[in-house]
C-alpha cells in the first residue's frame, strides 16, 4: 500500500531526539562492546566532575561494576556533587538536549546528551529501568529522593515508576544502570584505562573503582585544589558564522542590531560597528529581526577582512604545569617528567585555545605490550581523555610528524614513554559527534608540535645524562678491575715487584661519578 508523502513527513516530524538517538545510538558513541562501556563511564564521570567543580566541591566518585553474566553488567556510579533537585532528575536522565544552551564556555560535556544517552543504552539493551538516588540542599535542608524511571522515547521524557524520599548523608547523585552488549576491558580503549587517564588530567579528584573481579582500585587525589571555574566569554567576530548571527538576532532582547553586535561579540566596539557600516553600507540600526541572511553573510565576510584584537583568554583554564606533573607522577611513577602549558593561541581566526603537553619516561610510562614497553599517547580535550579515533586526531598527527630521533627516541612506538597532550578551548573542533578526535587545524598542529618538542628536548637531556652516567659508571668499573690486573701481569712479565699505582689509577678514573640528574628549568 502506497503512502502519501504528507503521511511520511508526519512521522518525520514526530521523531523526538530520544527516538532519533534510539535509532542511531552510534552517534552517541555507542558502537562496539568495549567502546559503549567506556562511553558510559565517560559521560557519567564528566558530568560528575563538572557538577562538583561548579559547586566548589572536591570531586569524589565511587564506581562499582558487577558482571551478572557474560556481557551483562550492573553499574553503580556515585558522586559527591551538589545533587539534582527532584524536579530535574528525569530531565537530566531522560530528556535529550535538556542542557543544551548557547554558551561559549570551556566545559567537559557540552551537548546535554550524556546521561540520558546512558539511560537510553541501558533501556535498549536490558529493558530495565534506571535507579537514581539524589541528595541536595534545599535552603539549609538536606533532602534525598530515590527514583526508578524509564525513558519514554516517544515523548523524550521520563516515565517515573516509583519514587520515595530517603535519608541521605550528603549531597550527590547515585545512578544504577543495567547494561548488556557491553564488555569490560583492560585495553587502551577500555573503561579502566579511561579512569586512569582521567586521573592524570584531574589530579584533584578521587575515584574508587571496583572492577567486575571484585578488585578495588583507589585512585587518590594528588592535589587538593579545585580548578577555577572557566568564565563564559563572548564569541570573537572571526569565530562566528552568518548562521550564528541570525541565531543571535532571533534570541536577543536588544532592540538594535548594532547593540546586539557590541554586547554579544567580544572585541566589538561602537567604533568597529561604524567601520562595518561604512564598509558594507548596511544600516545596523535596524531591528535584529530584520537582519537578512545575505546581510549577515556580508558582515561575516567583513569581519574576516578586519583586524581585531585576539579573543580574550580569560575563559581558558588549563590544567597547569604543576598539576600535570602531579597527575602524571601519581599514576605513572616515572623516572623523569616534564610538562608545559603554552600561551593561548587562536585557530580559525578567532577561537582561542591552549595546548598543554607532558612527557614521562620510565616507571609505569608507556604500555606493556608482551614483554616490552611501548610508547603511549594520551590525548585530552578540556581534561577529558580521548580514547577512540586516534588515527584521525590532530594530536596523533602532530606527534607523528615530530622527528623523534632528534630527541633520543629511536622509534616512537617502542620507547618507555607516555606523551600527554591536553587541548583547552571553549570550542574544541571535534571531528565527529563522538567527540573522540580533534580536527587537524594548522594552528593546533603547530602548537601541539611545539609543546611536545619542548618537553621532549628536556627528556632527551635527561636520557643523555643518564646514559652518560651509566657509561661512566661502566668505565670506572672497567678501570678499577683491569688496571690492577695489567700492572700485576706487567710486573710478572718484567720480573719485577708490583709498583705503587694509586696515582695512575686515580688518573684514569678521574671523572666524577653519577649522582642523579635533576631537571633544569
Amino acid at each position: 500500500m502506497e503512502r502519501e508523502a504528507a503521511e511520511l513527513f508526519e512521522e518525520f516530524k514526530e521523531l523526538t531526539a530520544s527516538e532519533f538517538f534510539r535509532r542511531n545510538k552510534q552517534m552517541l558513541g555507542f558502537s562496539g562492546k568495549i567502546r559503549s562501556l567506556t562511553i558510559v563511564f565517560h559521560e557519567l564521570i564528566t558530568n560528575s566532575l563538572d557538577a562538583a567543580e561548579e559547586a566548589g566541591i572536591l570531586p569524589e566518585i565511587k564506581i562499582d561494576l558487577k558482571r551478572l553474566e557474560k556481557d551483562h553488567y550492573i553499574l553503580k556510579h556515585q558522586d559527591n556533587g551538589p545533587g539534582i533537585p527532584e524536579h530535574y532528575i528525569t530531565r537530566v536522565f531522560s530528556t535529550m538536549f535538556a542542557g543544551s544552551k548557547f554558551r561559549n564556555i570551556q566545559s567537559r560535556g557540552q551537548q546535554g546528551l550524556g546521561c540520558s544517552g546512558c539511560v537510553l543504552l541501558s533501556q535498549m539493551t536490558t529493558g530495565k529501568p534506571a535507579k537514581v538516588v539524589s541528595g541536595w540542599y534545599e535552603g539549609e535542608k538536606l533532602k534525598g529522593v530515590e527514583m526508578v524511571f524509564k525513558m519514554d522515547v516517544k515523548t523524550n521524557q521520563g516515565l517515573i515508576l516509583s519514587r520515595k524520599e530517603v535519608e541521605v548523608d550528603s549531597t550527590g547523585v547515585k545512578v544504577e544502570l543495567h547494561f548488556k552488549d557491553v564488555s569490560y576491558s583492560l585495553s587502551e580503549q577500555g573503561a579502566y584505562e579511561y579512569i586512569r587517564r582521567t586521573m592524570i588530567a584531574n589530579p584533584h579528584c578521587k575515584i574508587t573503582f571496583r572492577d567486575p573481579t571484585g578488585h578495588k582500585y583507589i585512585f587518590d587525589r594528588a592535589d587538593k585544589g579545585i580548578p577555577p571555574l572557566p568564565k563564559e566569554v563572548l564569541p570573537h567576530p572571526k569565530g562566528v558564522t552568518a548562521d550564528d548571527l541570525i541565531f543571535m538576532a532571533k534570541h536577543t532582547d536588544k532592540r538594535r542590531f548594532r547593540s546586539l553586535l557590541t554586547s554579544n561579540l567580544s572585541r566589538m566596539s561602537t567604533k568597529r560597528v561604524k567601520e562595518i557600516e561604512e564598509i558594507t553600507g548596511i544600516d545596523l540600526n535596524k531591528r535584529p529581526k530584520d537582519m537578512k541572511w545575505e546581510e549577515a553573510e556580508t558582515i561575516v565576510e567583513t569581519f574576516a577582512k578586519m583586524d581585531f584584537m585576539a579573543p580574550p583568554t580569560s575563559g581558558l583554564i588549563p590544567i597547569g604545569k604543576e598539576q600535570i606533573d602531579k597527575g602524571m607522577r601519581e599514576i605513572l611513577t616515572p623516572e623523569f617528567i616534564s610538562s608545559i602549558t603554552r600561551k593561548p593561541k587562536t585557530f580559525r581566526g578567532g577561537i582561542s585555545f591552549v595546548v598543554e603537553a607532558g612527557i614521562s619516561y620510565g616507571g609505569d610510562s608507556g604500555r606493556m605490550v608482551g614483554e616490552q614497553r611501548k610508547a603511549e599517547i594520551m590525548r585530552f580535550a578540556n581534561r577529558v581523555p580521548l580514547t577512540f579515533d586516534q588515527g584521525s586526531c590532530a594530536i596523533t598527527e602532530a606527534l607523528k610528524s615530530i622527528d623523534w630521533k632528534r630527541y633520543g627516541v629511536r622509534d616512537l612506538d617502542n620507547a618507555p614513554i607516555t606523551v600527554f597532550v591536553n587541548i583547552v578551548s571553549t570550542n574544541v573542533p571535534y571531528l565527529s559527534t563522538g567527540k573522540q578526535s580533534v580536527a587537524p587545524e594548522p594552528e593546533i598542529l603547530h602548537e601541539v608540535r611545539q609543546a611536545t618538542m619542548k618537553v621532549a628536548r628536556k627528556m632527551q637531556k635527561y636520557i643523555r645524562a643518564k646514559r652518560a652516567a651509566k657509561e661512566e659508571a661502566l668505565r670506572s668499573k672497567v678501570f678499577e678491575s683491569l688496571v690492577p690486573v695489567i700492572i700485576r701481569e706487567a710486573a710478572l712479565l718484567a720480573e719485577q715487584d708490583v709498583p705503587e699505582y694509586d696515582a695512575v689509577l686515580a688518573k684514569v678514573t678521574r671523572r666524577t661519578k653519577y649522582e642523579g640528574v635533576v631537571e633544569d628549568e
Partner: protein
Amino acid sequence: MNKKDITVNKLKSLGETILEDVGKNKVPTIKVPSRGTSNIVYDEKKRYYVLGDRYGKRSLGNVKQISKMAQMVYVANFCKDLIRRGKTATLREMYYVSEGWDVDFGDQQESNIVGEDLEVTLGMTREDLGLMPEEDGASVYGNIVIQDDDVEINALKSGKSGYTISPTIDEVEFVDHDVKRVIAVETMGMFHRMVQEEAYKKFDTLIVGLKGQAARATRRFLKRVNEELNLPVYICNDGDPWGFHIAMVIISGSAKLAHVNHQLATPNAKFLGVTASDIINYDLPTDPLKDIDVLRLKELSKDPRYRDDAWQMEIKKMLKIGKKAEQQSFSKYGLEYVVDTYLPEKLEQME
C-alpha cells in the same frame, strides 16, 4: 745470544715499558704498528710487503683499549712461560688457557688478533713466541739431513711421502745435504709423479709438495733453504691465476702477514710454470677460463707484486687465449714426459 733469549728479553721489555710509565705516574701506552690496509706497503727493494710506519695505541686510560692491553700482557706472559719451558702451544690451546685469566676473549678470533698484535709490536713471528699454527707444512723428498731436537731425519729415507715440515721448523737444524736446487709443486699428485720418476736424482733436487697454498712453516723452510743453504727455489704450479698466486705468496709474501714477511718471503724463488706460454708451446689440454679466473687475473695484473714484464706478459697472454691448464696435463704425452722433457727444458731456460 740465541733467539730464545732475544724473544724473552723482548717480552720482558714490554712489561718494563708499562712499569716505567707507572713509575713516572704516566698512563702507560703500548704502540702497536697498524695492520690496516693503508699501512701495508710493497717494498720494491725487499720485493715483499712490509708494514708502514703508522701506529695504533693501546692505552691504559682508554676504556676500549685497556682490555686489549690486559689481553696483551697476559698473552705475553703465556708466551714467556712457553719459551722458558721449551714448549709450544696452538692459538686454540691459548684460547682455552685464557679461560682462567682475569680478562676474557670474546672468541678465538679476538685472541688471534691479540697474538698478531704481540707479533707486530715485538717484531717476532708467532712461532718465535711459541704459538704454533695447527697445520703441518709441506712434504719434502730428497737428499737432505736435518736435526729436529734429538732426532736426525734424512728426507730421502722417510717413506715415499717424504719428510713433513713441522710447524716448529725454526727449531730444526740443517745438518747435511747433497742437492743443487729445490722444486716446489702445487699438488701431491705431481709430487709423487716426480718421486716415482726419480726427479730428485735427475735434477739433484729437493721435491716439495706444497698441498695448495703454502703453510707458514713451508714458507719458512723454503726461505731457510734458499738463504742458509744457497739453493735456488723453483715453483711449479697449475697454469691458472690461483697457481700463479701460490707461487707469488712464497716469493713476495702476503699482505695479511706483512709484519712477518721478512721471515717468510723468499724473493729469490722463481716461478717455473705452468705459464701461459707453456700452454701454447707444449700444446697442453686446457679448460676455458671461468669468469672468476678472468677477474682474478685482472686483479693480479694490478698487484705490485706482479709488476715485472714477464708476469705482465704471462697474465695478458692467458687472458688472450682464455685458457688454463693443470700441471698434470703434461700426462697427455705420457706420465714420464713432465720429468723427462718439460722440467729439463724449463730448468735449462731459467739457469
